[in-house]
């Protein structure tokens, strides 16, 4: 088997003064195989961005090693930069230039031939649905357009590995869908993708494999299906008037929680109807309300780490 395209071993990184260091990475181990999409999933402050910055040569780790395409990110940074592209959280484009000017500039900086750049820029503008706005200044763009341009700027060279740091944070649902479609196209083009996200759904939608990061360590890893299986499927949550009613329901696999009864479900209409019918028959009292809840990042964390996902800010406040 060929070695992984990206391999990080025991990455450590602290910020702050030598006296009061704030540890951000505490031995991160993670790999990305050729052609794979990996989602590094975790809450704010877990170390996602720091990991990506180290792998994309922007930051030196305090300890551990990271190799990309066989090159060390610290000692062979120039070679690593030839095969990667990074799209970070803050838009890496000039607001005062148009989309076309931004892309053309990036093409020249990527040392591509001028004529090739012209065609490639047109293709990318069209593919990312920026054709109509191509000659407008980026400052007038919506958040979704900016992200798409940002992504396009990273694709002029057809990189082997693309690092995408929280590509849809702050986008509305529609822009998020569009972004996912674009990302799938990039992957279909053969680019391996190292993605970070706070959203379980996003990891589920895009990734072949998910690495769960918490407090500077990768705490769980696996295919999205596998991870969700460990967490449990979606559940019907039934709210009754009293806890006694909940206790009287003898439904197999259901877990009571105060006035709420949680029943695992696959989310199909048939199953939900069966559950409601079974509950009504058992108690003789209809539940007041019901809703279907998909597992969230919180559920994943609760199950796999034993504590709720907390952001750095909350920890600092606690």
């Amino acid at each position, binding site marked *: 088997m060929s070695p992984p395209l990206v391999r990080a071993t025991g990455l450590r990184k602290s910020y702050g003064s030598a006296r009061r260091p704030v540890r951000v990475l505490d031995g991160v181990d993670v790999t990305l195989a050729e052609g794979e999409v990996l989602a590094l999933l975790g809450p704010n402050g877990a170390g996602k961005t720091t990991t990506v910055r180290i792998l*994309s040569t922007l*930051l030196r780790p305090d300890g551990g090693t990271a190799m990309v395409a066989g090159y060390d990110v610290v000692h062979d940074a120039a070679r690593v930069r*030839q095969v990667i592209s*990074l799209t970070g959280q803050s838009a*890496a484009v000039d607001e005062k230039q148009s989309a076309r000017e931004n892309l053309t500039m990036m093409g*020249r900086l990527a040392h591509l031939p001028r004529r090739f750049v012209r065609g490639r820029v047109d*293709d990318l503008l069209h*593919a990312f649905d920026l054709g109509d706005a191509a000659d407008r200044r980026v400052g007038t763009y919506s958040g979704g357009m900016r992200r798409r341009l940002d992504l396009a700027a990273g694709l002029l060279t057809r990189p082997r590995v693309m690092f995408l740091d929280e590509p849809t944070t702050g986008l509305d649902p529609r822009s998020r869908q569009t972004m996912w479609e674009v990302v799938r196209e990039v992957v279909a083009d053969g680019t391996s993708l190292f993605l970070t996200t706070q959203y379980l759904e996003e990891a589920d939608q895009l990734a072949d494999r998910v690495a769960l990061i918490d407090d500077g360590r990768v705490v769980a890893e696996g295919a999205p299906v596998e991870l969700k299986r460990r967490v449990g499927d979606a559940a019907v949550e039934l709210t009754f008037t009293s806890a006694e009613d909940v206790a009287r329901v003898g439904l197999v696999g259901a877990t009571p929680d105060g006035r709420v009864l949680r029943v695992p479900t696959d989310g199909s209409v048939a199953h939900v109807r069966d559950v409601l019918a079974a509950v009504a028959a058992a108690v003789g009292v209809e539940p007041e309300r019901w809703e279907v809840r998909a597992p969230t990042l919180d559920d994943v964390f609760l199950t796999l780490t034993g504590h709720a996902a907390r952001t750095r800010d909350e920890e600092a406040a606690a």
Partner: protein
Amino acid sequence: MTAPTLPAPSGTRPRRPAPAARPGRHVLTDTSAMIGRSLRLVRREPDELLLALVLPVMLMVLFVYVFGGAMSVGTDYLTYATPGIVLLCAGYGASNTAIAVEQDMSGGIMDRFRSMPIASATVLVGHVVASVVKNLVTTAVVLGVAHVLGFRSDATALEWLAAVGVIVAYIVAVTCVATFLGVLVRSPAAAGGFGFFMLFLPYVSSAFVPPGTMPAWLRGFAEHQPVTPVIETIRGLLVGLGSDAQPVADLGPTAALALAWCAGLVVVFLVGAAWVFSRRRRQ
């Protein structure tokens, strides 16, 4: 919206072959791309551009018509002060480079540059060149306004060329200091502070009054700060007068001092800027 389609992979450029780690190979391409970028950015900064055009007119009117009447420097005040206004405007414009550099340092675009196989310090070169171009335009505006108000130079073409050369050296020197501050500070407000400083530095020189009229402690500073020899050189070249309004016999030593100051500032602050730049983000 329809699902986007990426350009066909087969028809485009193949993936890069085994990479060669020679980031210096494309330094000229990188530099010219960065210069193009900075020039476009400067052109699209309406506030700054307006200021670069309005400030010279305002200062000229202020000095010639408001202060000018009360000034007695031994010659026509317009003739005396025009070189100073040139330097004031150019120096102030150059100091604004600190803001542009700070913006780049704190924005996401620097991460992209640094993650690409380019000599990312060329981004600073782009700012320096754009600053020279922008402030030469400002200089032309100042001289144009001065001409309209009645400023006349008896300089030969060669002297004009030398004067422009000294002005360029001064712009580059101030820009390098500004670049250093731009990579050093962490907020736009701090970067803007240098502009304030550069707006006042020429007043404590021989630009607008002879240093001989200042109290001794201030005169010491005025006579030994870099703006003074630069001003003396330009005034000497353009109108042939010294700060005492007497004809200058030998401009050589003053010009040498002016150029030495500029060269010194460029070397010290450019090296400093490069040093801070390479360390700031990779700690």
